[in-house]
């Protein structure tokens, strides 16, 4: 049973399309990163899965049922972007209120607040909370009743680095326990190590989806090799030129090192040649990061056009 399955989903707001033809699935025990520029349709996607809206076209199934059914939403945890709470209530009162609504046991409230690091602020009114504390309370709220599907919109906003690391560790534990997790974030380097798959949205369409290796293949972006020459830079340069058949690899010298951008399929041939020549002392390989991939997919769609029309 998938956590959710969007099948050719389209949604229009006052006739202008917000989402077009989205196919997306999340399996249990998986963390999916949902990325896109502002207004790309991430929040709409989430609202469709939460059952707050119904698509104009296509079907949404969530946890084997209908999006928005009470029996289904009971098993979904959601942290909205910029979460806000009743300022006059304490953290404990708010969590009790939401636990009752969710039909979850009240016993877990103090434990959850402890888990997100609000143990000391349990009985303080939330109007005294900082942004980070509100965010943690929002997280505790999302975790009520052990959700099978967890959707977090910008969960690390306002969190300090230690709290952020704690959050990701917690998410990994939940994932290993079989929870399906959707993570929306603009802090791409931060989430990169933790996501199993990424989905990139632009202008309401799914530009790319898959694990990072698949996305790298799809993007076909060059891999950057950083080479330390064993003897001289020119000798190493010569070796590279010959191995690549002068195919226009970009070679840059940086304080006695060489940076070479190579297409993924030519990478191993070049490496073998360099190794055999004995002209290299050290090699480091930089795969395109999530950020690079993101810019690649977004750039080829929206921004590049805007740039090109000037």
């Amino acid at each position, binding site marked *: 049973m998938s956590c959710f399955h969007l099948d050719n989903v389209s949604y229009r707001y006052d006739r202008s399309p917000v989402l077009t033809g989205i196919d997306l699935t999340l399996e249990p025990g998986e963390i999916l990163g949902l990325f896109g520029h502002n207004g790309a349709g991430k929040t709409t996607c989430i*609202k469709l899965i*939460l059952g*707050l*809206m119904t698509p104009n076209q296509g079907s949404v199934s969530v946890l084997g049922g209908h999006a928005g059914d*009470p*029996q289904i*939403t*009971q098993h*979904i945890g*959601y942290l*909205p972007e*910029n*979460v*806000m*709470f*009743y*300022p*006059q209530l304490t953290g404990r009162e708010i969590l009790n*209120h*939401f636990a*009752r*609504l*969710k*039909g979850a046991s009240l016993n877990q409230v103090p434990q959850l607040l402890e888990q997100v690091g609000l143990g000391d602020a349990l009985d303080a009114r939330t109007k005294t909370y900082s942004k980070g504390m509100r965010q943690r309370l929002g997280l505790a*709220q999302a975790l009520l009743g052990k959700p099978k599907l967890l959707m977090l919109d910008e969960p690390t906003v306002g969190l300090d680095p230690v709290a952020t690391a704690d959050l990701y560790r917690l998410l990994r534990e939940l994932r290993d326990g079989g929870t399906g997790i959707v993570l929306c974030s603009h802090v791409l380097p931060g989430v990169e190590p933790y996501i199993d798959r990424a989905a990139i949205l632009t202008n309401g369409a799914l530009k790319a989806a898959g694990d990072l290796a698949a996305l790298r293949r799809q993007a076909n972006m060059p891999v950057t090799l950083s080479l330390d020459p064993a003897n001289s830079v020119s000798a190493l340069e010569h070796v590279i030129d010959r191995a690549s058949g002068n195919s226009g690899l970009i070679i840059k010298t940086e304080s006695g090192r060489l940076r070479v951008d190579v297409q993924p399929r030519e990478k191993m041939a070049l490496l073998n040649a360099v190794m055999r020549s004995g002209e290299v002392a050290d090699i480091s390989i930089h795969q395109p990061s999530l950020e690079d991939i993101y810019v690649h997919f977004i750039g080829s769609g929206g921004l590049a056009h805007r740039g090109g029309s000037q």
Partner: protein
Amino acid sequence: MNSIWTIARKELSDSLRNRWLMAISLVFATLALGIAWFGAAASGQVGYASTPATIASLASLGIFLIPLIALLLAYDAIVGEEEGGTLLLLLTYPLSRSQLLLGKFLGHGLTLALATVIGFGVAGVAIAVLVQDVAIASLAAAMLRFIGSTVLLGWGFIALAYVISVRVSEKPIAAGLALAIWFFFVLIFDLMLLGTLVASEGQFSAELLPWLLMLNPTDIYRLLNIVAFGDSAQLSGVLSLGADLPIGAAGLWVGLVLWFAIPLVGALFLFRNRRI
């Protein structure tokens, strides 16, 4: 049902926390006792005049106060949650929009009902104990009728406030519209009716005219509390039309119930069709 009660319970504990319940009860009790003892001061005497006169004065003051309090209590029910950022989150819970609104109504309705029962109840008991020769039975009946109709009138304006609250997207606008509703039913409506009456110079259908009073819950409320004493002399202004209404007290009660049921259903309908 459980989630309706969870929402209602939060509203109730909110009105305990921000002292609304206590404040309204105190205002009601003070008002009732003040009118009971000083209501006849204009005619040169201090002391309890009579039960009908007291109830009539209370009802006349009630039509200003009850709608205002009800509207203030309820105008931000939904728009407040939306501005506070909690509406979206609430709706992702296993809670339908109708359940949310009904829970709010139960909470606000109970708050107002409790304040009315406590405030006017205390006043009624004080009158029964302190006034020497008051007829307890008729006082109790009049007080029960007054409290019951006050609660229904309050619920009507709570429901009207919800109609606003589910439609608009900003709290100040909701507050402004709530005041406009108050202004219309409490001040404008009777003036318009009176104007129609005078301008038509008796041409207006004499059978239809009294029914127009049913279009205003505050008029129904006043009629209900005054007509019951069988003393039409207390009916002043447009209310004298009410003496010609062929429906009796039961009809007036039904009128008050409809006045909270119909706006409530309307608010539920509007809320369900609203885009979040």
